[in-house]
């Protein structure tokens, strides 16, 4: 269950504005990674995002580079979930591996604006908006959900190596 406020952005938000390339080889501390989240898209985001807040976007979120800090910076910043019409495929994989839940919904992004309170129930596959509107979404494939449920790929592999 995720409960938070919406941060709304548009289509084709790319990894360079989510986490600038100039930091990718030198910034490794989670708090510092979080401090650069969405730096070139919304300079106010990192300082003001609250745990559980939800990033809501249009199509092709996370297109561009394979850098996984694009997913981890949101996770470390406390983002509870990303809701998008669609995700770029490497970002989708990286978010799974970061344990960052994703919701694919054609309708929800259009209906939400920045500041809206929402709650997301992953078991029921429901996103509930403040005005009572409910958007349903399909669950992640079980192979993939196992990784998210483990808390990300690191934990998942750790458990597997220990078996």
């Amino acid at each position, binding site marked *: 269950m995720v409960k938070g406020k919406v941060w709304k952005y548009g*289509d*084709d938000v*790319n990894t*360079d*504005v989510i986490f*600038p*390339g*100039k930091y*990718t*080889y*030198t910034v*490794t501390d989670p708090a510092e990674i979080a401090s650069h989240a969405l730096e*070139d898209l919304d300079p106010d985001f990192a300082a003001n995002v609250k745990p559980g807040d939800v990033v809501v976007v249009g*199509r*092709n979120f996370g*297109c*561009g*580079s*394979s*850098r*996984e800090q694009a*997913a981890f910076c949101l996770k470390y910043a406390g983002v509870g979930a990303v809701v998008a019409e*669609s995700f*770029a*495929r*490497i970002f989708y*994989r*990286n978010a799974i*591996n*970061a344990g960052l839940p994703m919701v694919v919904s054609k309708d929800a992004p259009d209906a939400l604006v920045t500041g809206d309170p929402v709650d997301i129930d992953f078991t029921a596959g429901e996103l509930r908006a403040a005005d009572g509107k409910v958007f349903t979404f399909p669950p992640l*494939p079980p*192979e*993939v959900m196992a990784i998210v449920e483990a808390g*990300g*790929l*690191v934990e*998942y*592999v*750790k458990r*597997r*190596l*220990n078996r």
Partner: protein
Amino acid sequence: MGKPFAEKIFSARAGRDVVPGEIITVEPDYVLSHDNTAAIAATFAKMGAEKVLHPERLVIVLDHCVPAADAKHAENHKKIREFVAEQGVEHFYDVGRGICHQVLPEEGFARPGRLILGSDSHTTTYGALGAFSAGIGRSEAAAIWATGEIWLMCPESVRMNMTGEFARGVGPKDLILSIIGDVGADGMLYKSVEFAGETMEVMSVAGHMVLANMSVEMGAKNGYVAPNDKTAEWLASRESAEYEAVYPDADASYESELEYDVTDLPPMVAKPHTVDNVAPVEEVVGTAVDQVVLGTCTNGREDDLEEAARILEDRTVASGCRLLVFPASREIWREAMKSGAFEAIEGAGGIIMNAGCGPCLGAHEGVLAPGEVCLSTANRNFKGRMGTPEAEIYLASPATAAATAVEGRIADPRGYL
């Protein structure tokens, strides 16, 4: 009904019939990493892993910030060298060898029918040689080092049929920019894109690489060119362990097929700040530029340098404009020395740099100042890509880059050839 390339190779790897949307566990033949290797090693350690399961499957190429721009990058490289020694990684290419997406083909890793995953989005490049190759994240590379395997979803396939012959001064880069402009940055999301048709039969392997390299810019999982005579010719001159090509069935069924006739295609550019913001060069001719970058994993090959050299021969780079040239590999560097391409470029006032990624991702070697404009032969023009969000980046072909350097303004190369 037959199967396209992706379903053929997924089925072969799984040992059963696989259809799009199915998730299978695969053992990649090779896993690529570059300057991000130290970060992957840190994740590998977090996983509780100690020894890489198959060190012979790792290919590590230092290319993203080479030679190191500062002490932090130097330390990163040092950590990688230590990891390579510790784990006995044999396929390690240190600073100066070239860009990973040229080194893997040259060193015999990117070959038809191989399955290659890389912690770099432009890993799609090896589809130009008939491999299935796709980008993955750093943690996933660590998981493969630890376990030898990873999950992949079988993609839907789209075939793009190319016909016609390019006009003089127009080539593969103009074609792929026009395709990306046509389908959009997410037009091929999750898809396996097959580049086919008569145009591919006469296009050089370097051209195939331009298309496969940029297929990720329209969201594709992988790009693929069925090995043809041009591929065979290229492969014949290079050594490699054995491989077995995988072809789509002749009666394969595709999610969709798109037709592109290149006959009347003009030189194209991608305008700031997205790769799908594409227009014919005419629309932006005359735009003043401060810097031109020729090179990168998209357009740093012999064909590209020679095309630019033909335009720059006996001409001069405009005053107030910088031309930076980054060959994709040491091998190409040497070829360009021998062929006279460097002489022509240097003679015109171009600056020949070392083989590597250069300023493409904004790390060093020619980043931009706020307010500057750059025309580059790279594959991305996102805001902030080359060091500051207040610069503008145009993407174009090597010919357009050379003509632009001569004028100091975006120029149509057709007047120069």
